[in-house]
């Protein structure tokens, strides 16, 4: 494992009166895909939103590329090189696909070569370029959300459940695209419920429950260890019912 790109130490997050994150310790190494698993309500989305500064950690620290970003404002965190694909995708439905992409390009006009590459990965972004983003299907919106995050090269991309509610064919397509993205020097922190998808793409894996990280290690190790899977997934299932 190489040097840490992003590090959360003892992060607590409160939302109103609720104590959601209860001391999250998470290390994302540079390069590759880190997967964050956990049952519904474990605090995965809250973790990503806290990294983005959309919630402010009440204690603990978050460092990115050696810099403390715990109390930084969201726009500054974004401009330091972190892109975010939220759980609800955050598509601007009143704008066209092109306008959604244009706004995401904050350094200047979109690089045509990069756009061609993105449209290769996600053909609907080409097909519906001038359509209102509100007319896209759920899967197409998800592709646009990821496209928007990679319109310029980013150091780190946080993606929250990109396969949620998608048909199997689209899940495969999305997985392929993320695999290709992984080949560029972008690091991905991926929140997933779909273990098959997550294990096919992840290098490291962390499992969350009740606002804490309860397991942290290599994906290969977890894939090999059925007992560990059983314990963690079983726990998930138990807590589910």
């Amino acid at each position, binding site marked *: 494992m190489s040097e840490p790109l992003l590090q959360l130490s003892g992060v607590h997050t409160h939302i109103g009166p609720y104590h959601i994150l209860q001391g999250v310790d998470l290390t994302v190494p540079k390069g590759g895909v880190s997967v964050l698993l956990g049952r519904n309500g474990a605090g995965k989305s809250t973790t990503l939103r806290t990294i*983005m500064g*959309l919630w402010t950690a009440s204690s603990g620290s978050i460092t990115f590329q050696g810099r403390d970003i715990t109390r930084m*404002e*969201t*726009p500054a965190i*974004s*401009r330091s090189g972190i892109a*975010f694909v*939220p759980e*609800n995708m*955050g598509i*601007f*439905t*009143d*704008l066209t696909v092109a*306008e959604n992409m*244009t*706004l*995401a390009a*904050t350094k200047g006009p979109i690089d045509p070569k990069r756009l061609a590459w993105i449209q*290769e*990965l*996600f*053909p*609907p972004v080409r*097909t*519906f370029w001038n*359509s209102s983003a*509100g*007319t*896209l*299907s759920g*899967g*197409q919106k998800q*592709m646009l959300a990821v496209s*928007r995050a990679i319109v310029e090269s980013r150091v780190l991309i946080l993606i929250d459940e990109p396969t949620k509610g998608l048909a199997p*064919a*689209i899940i*495969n*397509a999305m997985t*392929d*695209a993320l695999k290709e993205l992984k080949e560029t020097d972008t690091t991905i922190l991926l929140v997933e419920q779909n273990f098959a998808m997550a294990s096919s793409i992840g290098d490291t894996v962390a499992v969350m429950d009740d606002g804490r990280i309860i397991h942290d290690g290599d994906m290969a190790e977890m894939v090999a260890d059925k007992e560990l899977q059983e314990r963690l997934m079983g726990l998930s299932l138990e807590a589910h019912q």
Partner: protein
Amino acid sequence: MSEATIKPRIEKAPLGERMIEKLPVVLVPALAMLGLIAVGNPATWLTLTVAGLAMGLMIFIMASGLTVVFGLMDVINFGHGAFISVGAFVGFTVLIWLGGWTSSPSVFLNLSAVFMAILVAMLATALMGYAFERVIVMPVYGEHLKQILVTMGGLIVAQQLIYVFWGPDEMHVARPESLQGSFVLGEAAVEKYRLVAVGIGVVLFVAMRYVLKSTRIGLLVRAGVENGEMVEALGYRVRRLFLMVFMAGSALAGLGGVMWGLYQETITAHMGQEIMVLVFIVVIIGGLGSVEGCFIGALLVGLLSNYTAFLAPKVALVSTIGLMVIILMWRPQGLYPVVKAK
């Protein structure tokens, strides 16, 4: 990922539904036609219609800022009327200074005087908007009840400041020479100033649409109205954007104040507060946050007020409230509901 796995398709609503989507636009000519039938005399109808459009466009100018401010940051600003009044007083003061220009027979000098009055009033209200946002609105983001109380407080303070600077009396200024009187078209008399008001209003609406649809700032405003968090996550500071919109909205209210003042030729410290009743009706009819809806709502209110003022003067204000009730029964979120994320 190949084209085969993702069937490209555009989900279009059925034709009938799309027609209903466009329906609000048709309401304006429909109301004008109804007016023609009710009024009977085409010449009278033309006079009333131009008056209604002029009034509607002036209300639109005053309301447009308010609706975007609400859409972008969920801020309810009951102090908006203060900018209307202050704009009118500043504009009238400029017109008095430029008395030589306004009483001159030269159309150019007359219009220059009005232009200067508008410019200074907009600058003053934009600055006042800056102070208002920083001092009064910023501490109460996200808290509607406090916003109502605090912005109303701001309104009262602003009205008292008008008394301090301009005294307690109402102020009269006659319109410049060339903006007095009417054009006569056949049997119909159309006041010149109303045509000017229509002209300014239309130019402003077109400019505003252009800014919102075709500039980066406009795109950010529209994106921010829908999902401010995501705009921040893309790296833009929504608060700064909001401050700009707030100042622009205040300047537009100031412009509206000058235009309304010239229309009435008399202004008071309370004029803004009084017009705010119509402004709120228009913003609600249009759908909170929607500029297009606000435009159509303002034209409907302007036309209806003038028709009813002629046909049944006693029910003029009641009729606009009736219009709002009917439209909300049809579309509870207003003519163009703004989709909010989450």
